[in-house]
């Protein structure tokens, strides 16, 4: 069963902060580690995460961020070497933790021995930019919606809505289930939310955590 994840994000810059904000709307507990005081204050005003001020590669700071009790750590600073170091250090302190490191080049193969996942924000950003530049009037929705989030969510076994027909589930206002399982048909009232299957769902940010609760438990 999925409960709220405890997540540490090292680096509270644009990437780190946006990630933290997104995870917060999905109902997770986020701690951000950031060394710059002004950034810390700015983030505190947004009120999405607990903030530790300091250098994330310092073991004492990592301990204060509660590595031992966290499920995931993501090194999202602009420095791939630092991200790698943070992830490896965290894995040393807590072998159970999942690690995600931000890298700055397309080639990611070299990192896979050391971290669980890599992210390459520039790559994602480039796709969006290319879409904009092309200026096509019709395009797929990844990364181009405003605050509306269009997600593919796998229904968890034992979640409140698992195995229920769509018409029997009251999603909060601001939710739209778009696809049938496996994305081959548009969802209908009799569509059943089968556990293990994935569904495309549009969600407004303020109800994201409720939707996650219904589908993931």
């Amino acid at each position, binding site marked *: 069963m999925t409960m709220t994840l405890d997540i540490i994000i090292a680096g509270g810059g644009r990437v780190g902060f946006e990630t933290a904000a997104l995870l917060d709307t999905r109902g997770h507990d986020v701690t951000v580690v950031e060394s710059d005081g002004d950034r810390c204050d700015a*983030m505190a005003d947004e009120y999405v995460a607990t*903030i530790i001020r300091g250098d994330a590669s310092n073991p004492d700071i990592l301990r204060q961020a509660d590595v031992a009790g966290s499920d995931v750590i993501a090194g999202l600073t602009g420095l791939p070497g630092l991200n790698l170091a943070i992830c490896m250090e965290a894995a040393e302190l807590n072998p159970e933790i999942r690690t995600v490191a931000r890298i700055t080049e397309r080639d990611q193969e070299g990192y896979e021995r050391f971290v669980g996942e890599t992210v390459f924000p520039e790559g994602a950003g480039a796709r969006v930019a290319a879409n904009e530049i092309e200026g096509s009037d019709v395009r797929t929705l990844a990364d181009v919606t405003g605050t509306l989030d269009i*997600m593919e969510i796998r229904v968890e076994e034992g979640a409140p809505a698992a195995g*229920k027909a769509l018409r029997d589930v009251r999603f909060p206002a601001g939710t739209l289930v778009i696809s049938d399982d496996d994305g081959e048909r548009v969802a209908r009232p009799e569509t059943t939310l089968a556990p293990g299957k994935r569904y495309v769902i549009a969600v407004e940010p303020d109800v994201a955590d409720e939707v996650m609760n219904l589908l993931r*438990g």
Partner: protein
Amino acid sequence: MIGMGAMIGAGIFVLTGLAAEIAGPAAILVFALNGVVTAFTGLSYAELAASIPKSGGGYAFVREVFADLPSFVMGWMLWFAYMIAGGLYALGFAPNFLELLHVYDLTPAPDQVGAVALPVVDAAVPAAVGLAFVAVLGLVVLNAISTAASGSVETIFTLIKVSILVVFVAFGATSPMFTSAEFQPLFADGGGPLSILPAMGLTFIAFEGYDLITTVTEEVKNPRENIPKAIFVSLAVTVVVYLAVVSVAVGTLGADGLAAAGEAGIAQAATEFMPTGLPVIRNGGAIIVFGAVFSTLTALNAVVIASSRVAFSMGREDQLLPSFGQLHHRYGTPFVAILASGVVMLGSVALPTQSAGNMSSLFFLLSFIVVNGSVIKLRRERPDMNRPYKMPYYPIPPVLGIVLNLILTGVLVEYLLRTDVLALGLSAGWIALGVVAYAVYTRLGADESASKPTGADETAPQTDD
């Protein structure tokens, strides 16, 4: 606003009479001193709420700081405190509702319907208890099948309550009864100054609103300034309103009269001095009585939500059965958490009002101690945590908070030993039950996770290869 709503509303209507019963006219002092004691805890709440952006109140903060068992006990206590508070408000609602009916001559005077608080069995007691039961049941069902009323409604409710109390104070302070008021002897017979201590313990529940404020902080804009402000403003307003209302009530009805009226004390005081013969409402006191009914009901609603939210958070954190942490697929509400809270609340309606107040206060005292402790622990263990609001003169306020709350806890326990062993036993029983449940649950949980691979497959699909 939600915190103020709960702090100002029901506590004052329900508890004033009971405080007067124990402490005499010194009930005024009781509320003032409680305000001082809770101010220290208020500082702790402000610091925690500003630096930990979680809506979940005391439990969420303690969960952040302490290991599994202590945070479980904290949540368990807080959950209970809210549930019993629900029973208390329901019990306060009933006699006030009867008084309201009485004002319109629909029923005999409440004192003929029975001194509800006392476990003396006369035919009328079931009427009030039944009424309380119905009130709890109604609100639980309402909350279980539909999502809660929005914050703006809560604000309007609070304004209505405050205006009603202002009317009460204005009429009371200018009435002839008040000008000849007797505040002597200040202390109840034979009690002396120490008699205010148990009364402080009893009425402590009136300040539970802190925790409520911090349960809704997610919607706050600019928390660095606004959360501490919300906490201190509501504390100040609450204390001022309480002092004014209690002074007037004691001044007009007298401590003995107030004590005799019990949970309907304020309402009774009001009917004494409010103008009569008005059109439609007939009797000015009806406004106040209506206020009491209204306040107890809204407060009851607030604690139904608050208690279920604590249970819900505990379910989310895997400290209660996961079903507590899940929304109901058809109603979109934390159905199991609300129902479970409702069951205990319904049970607590059978308690005498005093016991309910005592138990709820006891648990709030204990949880406030833990909250103060977690400020200290957090400062020591995570010195580099960003704290948008830092309390002044650390560590004096949390230490004082702990010491004062401990003293009150001690006094309350001692008082309960003498007068209300039932409440004490039930409280101890609840904690014992919690520890046993926790042991069983973690044992089961450990077996389950040992036989199952850890769920690593919850990445959002975008990050999948």
